[in-house]
């Protein structure tokens, strides 16, 4: 049997598929989140050094992971869109960017909430915090560039190129910030030598990461459906879809 790899690469066929996938990922996200939150707040032991305040890492660390993963996935979609000239890939990149930016912001905010009781300061120019802040700037640049170009095809390609340039730069930025940090700061704060984590803590963190991951997929699919409708509003399949929606709504009322 011959498999058509590109069957779902057109918005017309992907739109219903995405609609079917969203509830699955949303439910998975909810289940993982409930399990993860239960483990992190009810089962995981209190840290003997940091007390209860350490529990914020169950949100903070997965958010930071996701912020980085989403940037890489976004750049991969962008590269695919640029190489194959596929509309849907560029739309996926565009749909992922806001979620990535939100997770970056969440990681920054939870980091500073954690920093206040631990380090005694809301903000410390720690290497990880700083590079997370720069990652937020990269996301904002991507979103700003895409939203200020009116022609969607050009916006897609320009954003894709920027995402690729960003991905090349991210490791350089990360290491430069790390070296800058070790030069300028004493060893009063050393996050690198984290104490060994209890297995339950790690499990809670992994479950939360999975929850965030599933949430990202669900939200990105919802957003990509909106983008598809907006961009393809003059095509036949969107018109048929809106007609059928109107007629079913008419029957109900």
């Amino acid at each position, binding site marked *: 049997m011959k498999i058509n790899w590109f069957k779902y690469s057109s918005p017309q066929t992907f739109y219903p598929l995405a609609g079917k996938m969203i509830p699955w990922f949303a439910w998975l996200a909810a289940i993982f989140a409930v399990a993860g939150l239960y483990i992190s707040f009810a089962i995981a032991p209190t840290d003997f050094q940091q007390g209860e305040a350490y529990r914020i890492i169950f949100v903070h660390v997965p958010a930071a992971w996701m912020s980085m993963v989403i940037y890489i996935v976004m750049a991969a979609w962008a590269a695919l869109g640029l190489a194959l000239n596929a509309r849907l890939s560029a739309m996926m990149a565009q749909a992922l960017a806001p979620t990535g930016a939100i997770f970056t912001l969440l990681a920054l905010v939870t980091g500073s909430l954690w920093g206040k009781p631990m380090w005694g300061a809301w903000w410390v120019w720690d290497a990880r915090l700083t590079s997370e802040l720069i990652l937020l700037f*990269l996301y904002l*640049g991507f979103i700003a*560039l895409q939203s*200020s170009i009116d022609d969607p095809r050009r916006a897609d390609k*320009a954003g894709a*190129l920027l995402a690729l*340039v960003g991905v090349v730069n991210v490791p350089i930025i990360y290491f430069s910030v790390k070296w800058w940090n070790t030069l300028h700061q004493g060893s009063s704060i050393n996050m690198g030598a984290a104490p060994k984590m209890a297995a339950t803590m790690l499990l809670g963190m992994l479950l939360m990461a999975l929850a965030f991951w599933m949430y990202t997929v669900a939200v990105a699919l919802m957003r990509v459906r909106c983008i598809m409708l907006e961009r393809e509003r003059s095509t036949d399949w969107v018109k048929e879809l809106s007609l059928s929606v109107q007629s079913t709504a008419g029957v109900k009322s």
Partner: protein
Amino acid sequence: MNEAWIIVLKRDLLLAFRRRSDVATTLFFFLIVSSLFPLGIGPEAAVLSSIAPGVLWVAALLAGMISLTRLFAADFSDGSLEQMLIAPQPLALLVLAKVLAHWIVCGLPVVLLAPLIGLQYALPNDALLVLVLSLLLGTPALSLIGAIGAALTLGVRGSGLLVALLVLPLYIPVLIFGAGAVAASQHGMSAQAHLSLLAACSLLSLVLAPLATAAALRISVE
């Protein structure tokens, strides 16, 4: 191929020479920004010399950035950019010539002016030398990376502010190594590691940035 490269370089330099006020604006901007800090912070020499590396490097960064929007805008509006796009020579090479011209016009004057401002910030002689050296090694990277942002925002509304948002995060490594080199020599350490990394940044962007800029121009003009 070489010929086209030199022609573009000469043309851009000639254009810049005919519009000398554009060059002066960049230089004055650098001068004013770096003169504002002592007014805001106070005239103590110890404080000034400790913030000098960062302040002068940030001022150089901003001065290089404000002139970026002009890099392709004039060629875009009079149509000569399209001629470059369809020219038989590789576009990346022509872009490189334009970026080099931009650096000679906007980067080099800043490098030459920097020791004078460094004196105002009470920098010792060794640190002044390292400052010039670090700017000389680092500012080409600024022009090269900035060209990508300039090409992406070509003809976009609000491109001046947008270019800042796109390019400044990418400038961070250059800033860190550049200011770090000067600070290291102030503290009596060797600046060699920082200077090497700075040169590495410039070389890497010399290889990759013209290609990315050429691709960005094709996207923006098509």
